[in-house]
């Protein structure tokens, strides 16, 4: 059994003429927490979408937990054990908190009814409460629709969704972008808990302090290419900024960007 949870080889995504992601070779060890940094439009979210089956890659290989995978859709990725907080939150505004937490994997009764199987509201509500309490998310009324919540609360719901379900890999795309000081600290605590539990994590973030606080390794993307792979101990904020802006390029990536 290898100790690698996720590996990509030559992962590439073109949107028509836009080379959003170009030949990304990426390795994540089990239990490792890695940050992905880079300017706006560098291809970070695109990278996340290729791994999670939201989009179909142009070319390249993805190996998850020892097997080459071709997720047909996000549910496949989820069932394989990848939980994701997407940058565009993927919440349904007109549904309430439990409905959103369990969207696409509802707890049900009378399953022989097929699409008309009954929802087990009570059980989903209880699990939701447990999940929110565990992650310390503050919601005044979980029966409120998402449309009635603040941006931060929405973000919290999306994060609670990933933390409620056991997984092998958690991916968060700018999870604290909209959050207040306390909520940000809360999310960072959730991430630390994941670390203690030995769960692997990919964190997309623009927040240098947060990245240095939380992760083991930093990957930098620039214009669709990976340009640096830095162990936290070997680098500092200024160094990372140099890679992000293009003042520097990692030795092994020379000629790439």
């Amino acid at each position, binding site marked *: 059994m290898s100790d690698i949870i996720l590996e990509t080889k030559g992962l590439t995504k073109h949107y028509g003429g836009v080379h959003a992601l170009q030949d990304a070779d990426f390795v994540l060890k089990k239990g490792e927490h890695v940050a992905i940094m880079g300017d706006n439009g560098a291809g970070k979210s695109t990278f996340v979408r290729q791994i999670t089956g*939201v989009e179909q890659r142009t070319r390249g290989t993805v190996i998850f937990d020892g097997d080459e995978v071709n997720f047909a*859709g*996000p*549910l*496949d990725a*989820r069932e394989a054990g990848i939980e994701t907080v*997407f940058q*565009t*939150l*993927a*919440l*349904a*505004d*007109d*549904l309430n908190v439990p*409905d959103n937490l369990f*969207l*696409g*994997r*509802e707890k*049900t009764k009378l399953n022989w*009814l097929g*699409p*008309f*199987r*009954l*929802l087990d*509201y009570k059980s989903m*509500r209880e699990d939701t*409460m447990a999940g*929110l*309490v565990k992650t*310390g*998310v*503050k*919601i*005044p*009324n*979980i*029966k*409120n629709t998402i*449309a*009635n*919540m*603040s*941006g931060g609360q929405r973000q919290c719901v999306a994060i609670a969704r990933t933390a409620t379900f056991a997984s092998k890999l958690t991916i968060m795309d700018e999870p604290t972008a909209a959050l207040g000081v306390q909520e940000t600290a809360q999310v960072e605590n959730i991430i630390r808990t994941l670390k203690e539990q030995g769960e692997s994590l990919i964190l997309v973030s623009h927040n240098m302090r947060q990245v240095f606080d939380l992760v083991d390794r930093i990957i930098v993307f620039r214009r669709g290419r990976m340009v640096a792979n830095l162990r936290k101990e070997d680098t500092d904020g200024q160094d990372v900024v140099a890679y992000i802006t293009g003042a520097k390029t990692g030795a092994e990536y020379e000629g790439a960007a």
Partner: protein
Amino acid sequence: MSDQSESTGGLTFDKSKRNWPNELNVFGALILIVIIFEILGAIFMGQSLLFDTNDRFESIFNEARLRIIIIQVAIIGILALGVTQVIITAGIDLSSGSVVGATAMIAMSFVQVAEVNGGPNPKAIFGPAFLDLPVLVPVIVGISVGLIAGCINGLLVAYSRIPPFIATLGMMLFARGVAQWWSLGNPVSFPTESYAKIGAGMMPVIIFLSLAVLFHLIMNYTVYGKHTYAIGSNEAAARMSGINVPRHLMLVYMIAGGLAGLAAVILTSKNLTAQSGMGLSYELEAIAMAVIGGVSLFGGRGSIIGTVIGALIIGVITSGFTFLRLGAFYQEMVLGCIIVGAVALDQYQQKRAAMRA
């Protein structure tokens, strides 16, 4: 249930400030419209619209008029139940009226009697093998034709990504063409006696209300209902959550088509004949019922209960204008205003919700 089970992090939530359910607003509008007609009735006609002022009935209501109100909206109401689900997915179905027309012609052809007044049925579409068939045959044929039409709508919308407005507009024209081509414009008449029972008396109302209850339960308590709302609310989120959006949309459009097929069966049974013009502009009235009932054209919001009340509002207005002996044109003008008003209100609520976010 205690507040404890619904809030986290010590935030308080005042239950008395809970969101007012939209159906109550719609119901309030219904009551208001009834009151307006009662006042106008008292002033101009010296009579009540809904109440029994002449002591003709056992209850305090004018039962005859209540019955008329609900019977006249029941069949289009059945269409509206399907249209409601389509609109909740942020789609639209313009084809339901024409599908009623086509289905009416086709289903009726499978229910004709062999003999009329001692001679062979002069209107028979098919040969003797298809006459005097059991009543189940036309019912199944009718619902199947509706399902097929809905299936085509669904394929176009879900897999070809043709906008619902265009896909169902195409089906609307196509199905009307089928209705006219079927017997080259001739009506199809003389159904069997057992068929005539389906739409007799209060049967359309009973079927409409039973289906309304069924779909109310489905929309609120099943995965199908939850996914229907989720898709209309945020299709991308639904997809990212792993819902098979195209397959679900197929199902929604098929249910709408199947309901149109059933409505056609009931309508032909009630009228004892099928004509190619049947169901003309029913799709618009069905959409009106849903919209007046608070179903949002943006998707994600609305309910079966709302649509049923919307249907009653249309029924009351129609009966009310007849009661006041006002021409049908006034009624259409007023309905037009109400529909625009309902959508304007929805727009306003949508905007307010967006500002809060």
